[in-house]
């Protein structure tokens, strides 16, 4: 494990500073409450996700980091008893505004879930799904876009000879990269990753982390993770959350080496639960 992590660390040190640094997603006074529970799941969150960087959300289980992530593409709309107040801006557009096309929003903000969830279709059709939804059905265009997405997800060489086989026959790590390929095939601006490696073995995890590093040149990435080493390896910015509040948000290096809040320090040094 250690030799891999050194490898990634070396990659990470090659900075991406020239990327535009303004925020792509801005959250203002966001509150989220599940009607069945007594307290707020998210309490007065305000933060700005930088463009073309990797932002990690860390924190103990149930701290609300996944809930926050799901606010960015309005995935929480599917939960009936979920109430949200406050604003989330995607490039200065309020995504909870009155005339927002949620499907269009989700095309711009892609998401990858904790467990690989490829559709029970062929590898090809999985990646083609988002494109077909947009009405792209020309085989030539699809072939090209699918190859591009699979190459970007570092999966092309493994699946190019089995495009027609069922995606569920791939290994877990391959499935997760397929899901990432599926998400980037529709060219989103932001990519949300909800614990993308938590169900994978260390080698598959490493490949996903390498992939995240490569993808940040083109996409703004937000990743939720339980794994603090992973956050330290892959992210430029880190937000530490606890009990539905944003405790600390800053440059990853600073947050891990010199945290301002004692809560953060307790958590990253392992004194917390």
């Amino acid at each position, binding site marked *: 494990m250690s030799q891999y992590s050194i490898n990634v660390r070396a990659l990470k040190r090659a900075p991406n500073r020239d990327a535009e640094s303004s925020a792509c997603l801005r959250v203002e006074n966001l509150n989220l409450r599940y009607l069945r529970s007594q307290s707020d799941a998210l309490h007065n969150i305000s933060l700005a996700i930088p463009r073309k960087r990797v932002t990690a959300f860390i924190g103990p289980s149930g701290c609300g980091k996944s809930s926050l992530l799901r606010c960015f593409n309005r995935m929480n709309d*599917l939960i009936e008893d979920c109430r949200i107040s406050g604003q989330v801006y995607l490039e200065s557009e309020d995504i909870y505004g009155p005339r927002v096309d949620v*499907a269009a929003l989700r095309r711009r903000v892609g998401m990858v879930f904790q*467990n690989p969830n490829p559709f029970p279709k062929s590898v090809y059709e999985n990646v083609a799904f988002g494109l077909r939804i947009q009405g792209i059905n020309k085989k030539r265009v699809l072939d090209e876009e699918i190859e591009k997405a699979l190459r970007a997800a570092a999966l092309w060489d493994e699946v190019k000879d089995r495009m027609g086989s069922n995606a*569920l026959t791939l290994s877990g790590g391959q499935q997760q990269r397929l899901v990432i390929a599926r998400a980037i095939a529709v060219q989103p601006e932001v990519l949300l990753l909800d614990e993308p490696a938590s169900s994978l073995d260390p080698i598959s995890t490493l490949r996903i982390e390498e992939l995240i590093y490569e993808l940040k040149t083109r996409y703004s990435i937000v990743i939720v993770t339980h794994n603090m080493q992973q956050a330290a390896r892959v992210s430029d910015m880190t937000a530490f959350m606890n009990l539905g509040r944003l405790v600390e948000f800053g440059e990853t290096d600073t947050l891990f080496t010199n945290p301002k809040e004692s809560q953060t320090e307790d958590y990253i040094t392992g004194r917390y639960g």
Partner: protein
Amino acid sequence: MPTHEAETLTSSAETLDDGVRRAEPFVWLSAAAVVTAVLLLAGLVVLLAGNSLRFFWPQPVVFLNASSVGQAGLLGVVLRRETPRDSIQEQLLVLRGGQEFFSSPVEWISAQDIQSEERPRHAVTIERVDRGRLYGFLDALDVRGERISLAALPPEEALRLFLAALERSTSMSADQLRYRLRLSTGQIVERPVASVSSLHFANAMSWSEKAIYFLQAIGRFLTESPRQSNVEGGVLTAIVGTVMLVLLMTIVVAPLGVTAAIYLNEYARGGPVTRLVRIAVNNLAGVPSIVYGVFGLGFFVYAIGGSLDSVFFADRLPAPTLGTPGLLWASLTMALLTLPVVIVSTEEGLVRVPRTLREGSLALGATRAETVWRVVLPSALPAVLTGLILAIARATGEVAPLILVGVAKYAPGLPISAEFPYVHFDRQFMHLGFYIYDLGFQSPQLETVEGLVFATALLLVGIVLMLNLSAVILRGRLREAFSVEEGFR
């Protein structure tokens, strides 16, 4: 505490209670239930198969010399031998055919009256286009007044000549080509050859000839229309009627049931109203089918059909055009009857589609409708098919509501034809289930049609079994293709 554990694990004194506990009585109980069910089904199939195969297999024609039937004796097929409860004498039920010559085509004879029983090789069975069978001995053929004697010829030769005449009978008038048959009473009857549908010498047939006859008889059963108020001929009309009914029903119930299930599972909020609707749907499945029949008659036939008549066919009133039982109304009634089955099983399939698949689709910018159509429904397809097949199987076997909304004892025309509009929704139709009921329980001469009833029942059970089997196979294939559980998770 370790001593206590050791004690319970190695208890040497085995009581009966321990034995029962180890033998797991519930395994035996549940296995017994399965065995009972399988045996009952197997018994049913064997009973039906045995009786109907005997009906198609050529039975030996016996000549009985019995004191009770007079000097001439009795020629026919022994249908049954049984001893009545109030007697110790065995009784024989003999089918002697020729209903216009005898008071009854079947005759009970006491076994003790029989002086001799033989199987004459040249006894012929003639199946006629109308009026049932004739048993007797071929005497001669009259071709344009010229008589060819068949009486002395061996059966094979007589059969060859007769079949040749049968082939030519279409090009000659009925009077020019006639055959003479000597009945067991000695009486000679003369009939046109054209009225014969087939003939065979059952006692002179070899095993392979019997097998060929057997297959031909099954073929005629499946491809001919009923004749002689259903007691003769095949069941083609009933098969076509049943298939058309089920087909139309499926076309109606599939989209309706599936979309209703999609609404209940994908769109409706899980409130008390949804729960109420779901309970109502489940209860609809338990409503007696005759109630659906009454509803179909009142709502579809009289209300809808009647008002359509008064709008579009007012000039023909009071004679109803659509306001009368027919194929369309029967299909709609059956669709209503099977709707709960389709809704319930489709919903079960939809529930089993993991939420992560829906989220994956939505996260790619698909709308809810696109998600349902492209991801959820394909994954739930096996369950949808299961529901449809269950519905089809139920509709195939259902009779009670049909009596009210469109089935006919005898329908002269098929509900489909080669000329416009091809499918005649307004026509009455025949149905295998009703055919069994009508023939087996409304017929004045049950003994003569028993075989036909058994054969039809076997056919119906076979159709339902085949439908279920095809559903199982299809579902297995689809599960492989759309398996969500498989793979590395």
